[in-house]
């Protein structure tokens, strides 16, 4: 297992959202501004990495019958830590993500990786797996946010980037207005938009993977992979 291959797996060929189809709820719910997307993605990345390391470190001591309960307790512990840290240092993010921060406990990605990967692998690869899978999750969240924000209200980087102040962390940035919000398809910023956007990204990903597989079969080599986003 080398880093490069795990990175490619996490972000593209075994992406937690687009290929493993895990952790949909938060993906659709919070991707309304870049601020939320980046915040949520990084929170999950940190929690996932910590949980992976701990689970793989104690994997020999966990009795098989109660392993799920133990995983859940480990995950809930780290989620509580991150939740409290966000409340203390980035209250705006904690407020705008609301109940979805504690709900990371039941996010299938984390328990899924614990079950599928960390149980069988030592600490090193599990740590890398946490980072790469977390990155894959973050990338999809950011793509969703950018599309929904741009088409929905004509903005880019709401909450995170401010036209006057530059880069902000307090969630007050108004974003860069690329076209008048009146002309945006505001339906994309509503809950419905979450379903629709994710559906189209999924379809694009399936089409791209299929095309890549076809090219590979034609050329007969296994090095290159096409990368198509949106």
């Amino acid at each position, binding site marked *: 297992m080398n880093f490069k291959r795990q990175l490619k797996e996490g972000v593209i060929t075994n992406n937690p959202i687009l290929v493993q189809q895990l952790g949909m709820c938060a993906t659709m719910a919070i991707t309304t501004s870049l601020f939320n997307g980046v915040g949520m993605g990084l929170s999950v990345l940190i929690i996932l990495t910590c949980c992976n390391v701990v689970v793989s470190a104690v994997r020999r001591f966990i009795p098989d019958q109660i392993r799920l309960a133990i995983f859940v307790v480990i995950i*809930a512990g780290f989620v509580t830590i991150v939740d409290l840290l966000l409340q203390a240092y980035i209250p705006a993010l904690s407020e705008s993500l609301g*109940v979805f921060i504690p709900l990371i406990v039941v996010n*299938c990605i984390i328990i899924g990786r614990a079950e599928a990967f960390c149980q069988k692998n030592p600490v090193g690869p599990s740590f890398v797996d946490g980072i790469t899978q977390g990155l894959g999750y973050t990338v999809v969240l950011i793509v969703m946010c950018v599309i929904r924000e741009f088409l929905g209200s004509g903005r880019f980087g709401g909450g995170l980037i401010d036209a006057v102040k530059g880069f902000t962390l307090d969630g007050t940035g108004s974003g860069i207005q690329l076209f008048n919000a009146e002309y945006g398809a505001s339906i994309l910023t509503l809950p419905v938009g979450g379903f629709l956007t994710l559906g189209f990204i999924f379809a694009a990903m*399936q089409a791209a993977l*299929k095309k890549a597989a076809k090219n590979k079969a034609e050329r007969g080599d296994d090095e290159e992979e096409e990368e198509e986003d949106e």
Partner: protein
Amino acid sequence: MSVTEYISIAIGAILINNFIFSQFLGCCPFLGCSSKVETASGMGLAVVFVMGLASAICYVVNEFILVPLGLAFLKTLAFILVIAALVQFVEMFLKKAVPSLYSALGIYLPLITTNCAVLGVVLLNVQNGYDFLGSVIYGITGGIGFLVAIVLFASVRERIQFSDYPECFEGFPICLISAGLVALAFMGFSGMKIF
């Protein structure tokens, strides 16, 4: 809390702020278990049952154990343990007492532990400051909202099997798009004022 408040909690949870279509809680089982109407209704019923019970128990745990001891910050951890234990007990009880219901719910019962609608509803109960009856009503009606949504969506999906759509939408994407359209229909309820 007054009776009108309870009624508005109930109608809000079923129609206006439907757990799936406006709050995105419980999307995984919603998308995973909705290929047939029978399995969908089994899952929905199990969720109603567990959400009602979990709301009641977590209210008691929060009010009489966590808050007096000053441990409110541990509520995520405590609630998920309560839910996991509760699901296990419900499973054992049903197996012994109501085997017919147990076999009807089947695999869906253990899966509910990781349904974020259940953890979501108990966290929202605390966040919204509902009293005991309010929490239970919110839990049960939230579950009914889930049931309505998943049964409706399962019937839509049974129809999709016979329709013609682009190849790359096969499987998951077309489900998401149709779920989006059902959610669009539910948007008609938003902004509805009760009392």
